């Protein structure tokens, strides 16, 4: 590096700093004007010196500003400058907390709501199913009713129907008291005797026994069966005949318990298939003795029907005052079925078993 160059740098530095004496400055400016190469060189240096100065200045100013910024009281612009979100630390947190809780609540709420909706749907469904079950039940019942009513319509237009059987040749028969409950008029009917008008002589709701008397004249014949005076034993083979439908229906089974519904000692529990309409039907043993009368079924249990015991029936019959009977109740004393086969027994018995039709006007 020559001394000339060194001098130039010093001159340019002085020129840049504004300390170059007037004469030298004019000389320099003249040289730059006249000599393009020199001008470029000089301008490059001057530009660099200016940039150095600016850099220094900037660093210094930046330092001042940083210091000032640090001195800014945090609360001063918060006060003079109330803006949501202006100061994240202070302003945003409450808003964010609110927003977060809203989001959380909506999530939880949605969850709870969907859950409850789900539950409701399930409940609805169960209810619906229950209803359907109920409908099925009621439809079933209705169909049964319709079936019963149809039967009656074919025979007659009775409303309630049950079974009854003769206990004396002169027109007394018994049935379940619930069959004739609230009856305005009662008719009994079977194939042999046709339809006969009857009246309720006595109704014993406690033991579910009703004594009827046929008030129309009819050809009386002696009964082939007797009513057993003593209780039968557990496990005894029994059978019944009744009118759950238009035809007389046979059913057989055993005595499965010596007490009836709710430990009722006046009834047996029997394992015999019975249906609505069987009520009031006779329960007979192998020898053809009437040992009871069908009264009802327990809905909860399968194949659990109940029959009023024959001694109770006899007691009920005997308790009826002779005055109200109008004529003596002559009960059969000889069993003509003892040695017969079941088929023969049934043939003999069925003529004395009636459909009991009750009209409630």
């Amino acid at each position: 590096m020559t001394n000339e160059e060194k001098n130039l740098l010093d001159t340019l530095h002085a020129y840049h700093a504004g300390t170059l004496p007037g004469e030298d400055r004019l000389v320099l400016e003249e040289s730059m004007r006249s000599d393009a190469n020199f001008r470029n060189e000089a301008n490059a240096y001057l530009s660099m010196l200016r940039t150095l100065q600016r850099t220094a200045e900037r660093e210094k100013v930046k330092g001042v500003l940083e210091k000032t910024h640090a001195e800014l009281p945090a609360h001063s612009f918060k006060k003079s400058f109330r803006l949501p979100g202006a100061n994240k630390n202070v302003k945003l947190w409450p808003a964010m907390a609110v927003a977060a809780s809203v989001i959380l609540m909506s999530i939880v709420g949605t969850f709870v709501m969907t859950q409850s909706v789900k539950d409701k749907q399930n409940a609805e469904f169960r209810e619906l199913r229950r209803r359907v079950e109920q409908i099925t039940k009621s439809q079933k019942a209705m169909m049964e009713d319709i079936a019963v009513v149809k039967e009656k319509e074919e025979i007659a237009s009775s409303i309630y129907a049950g079974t009854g059987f003769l206990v004396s040749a002169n027109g007394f028969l018994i049935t379940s008291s619930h069959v004739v409950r609230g009856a305005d008029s009662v008719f009994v009917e079977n194939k042999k005797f046709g339809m006969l008008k009857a009246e309720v002589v006595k109704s014993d709701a406690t033991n579910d026994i009703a004594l009827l008397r046929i008030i129309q004249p009819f050809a009386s014949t002696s009964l082939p069966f007797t009513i057993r005076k003593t209780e039968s034993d557990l496990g005894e083979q029994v059978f019944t005949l009744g009118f759950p439908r238009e035809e007389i229906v046979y059913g057989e089974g055993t005595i499965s318990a010596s007490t009836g519904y709710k430990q009722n000692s006046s009834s047996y529990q029997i394992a015999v298939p019975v249906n609505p309409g069987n009520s009031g039907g006779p329960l007979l043993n192998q020898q053809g003795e009437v040992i009871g009368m069908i009264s009802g079924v327990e809905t909860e249990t399968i194949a659990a029907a109940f029959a009023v015991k024959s001694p109770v029936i006899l007691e009920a019959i005997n308790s009826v005052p002779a005055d109200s009977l109008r004529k003596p109740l002559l009960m059969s004393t000889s069993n003509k079925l003892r040695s017969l086969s079941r088929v023969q027994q049934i043939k003999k018995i069925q003529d004395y078993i009636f459909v009991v039709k009750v009209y409630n006007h």
Partner: protein
Amino acid sequence: MDYVDELIVGQLRNKNERALSELYKNHYPMVLKLVVENSGTEDDAKDIYQEAVIAFYQRVQQADFVLTCKIATYLYAVSWRLWLKKLSGKKRFTLKVHETEQFLQVEEEITNIEDENKRIAIMKTSLEGLGQPCSSIIRDFYMNALTMEEICAKFGYTNADNAKNQKYKCLQRLKKLFFDAYKIVS
């Protein structure tokens, strides 16, 4: 023209640091609001605002500078333009202030600021590339305005001429580094 603004400009020309500090404090909330309301953070606001203040400060130093509007208006307009540029760079636009809102013909100002910042950045890089002791000598002599004697004492040069020669060599090297980098960048 605003009397207070004129006073401040006068003080800034005298490089009064207290005046600079007051100016900074006075208008920071305005720019903070501007930036924060337009997808910026507090740090963004600080960076933008300091750029604007430095630009204003350097404009004031120029001999031909004439204050043609309020200082606040200048700072707001420059900050806004700077922030728009930064936003477009970041590709996150949620602007509250309308784009068409024009306050000043600030584009030239912004260009100057950007050129200036670019040159300064290159200079800093060049100074770093210069290595020691050149970097320190240049800084002390040209930026911190130390005398050669002070520099000699600082670096332990026994002869002031040696120090001077070192300074010239350093400046030459810096010139090369600076203009090479500058050409590459521009």
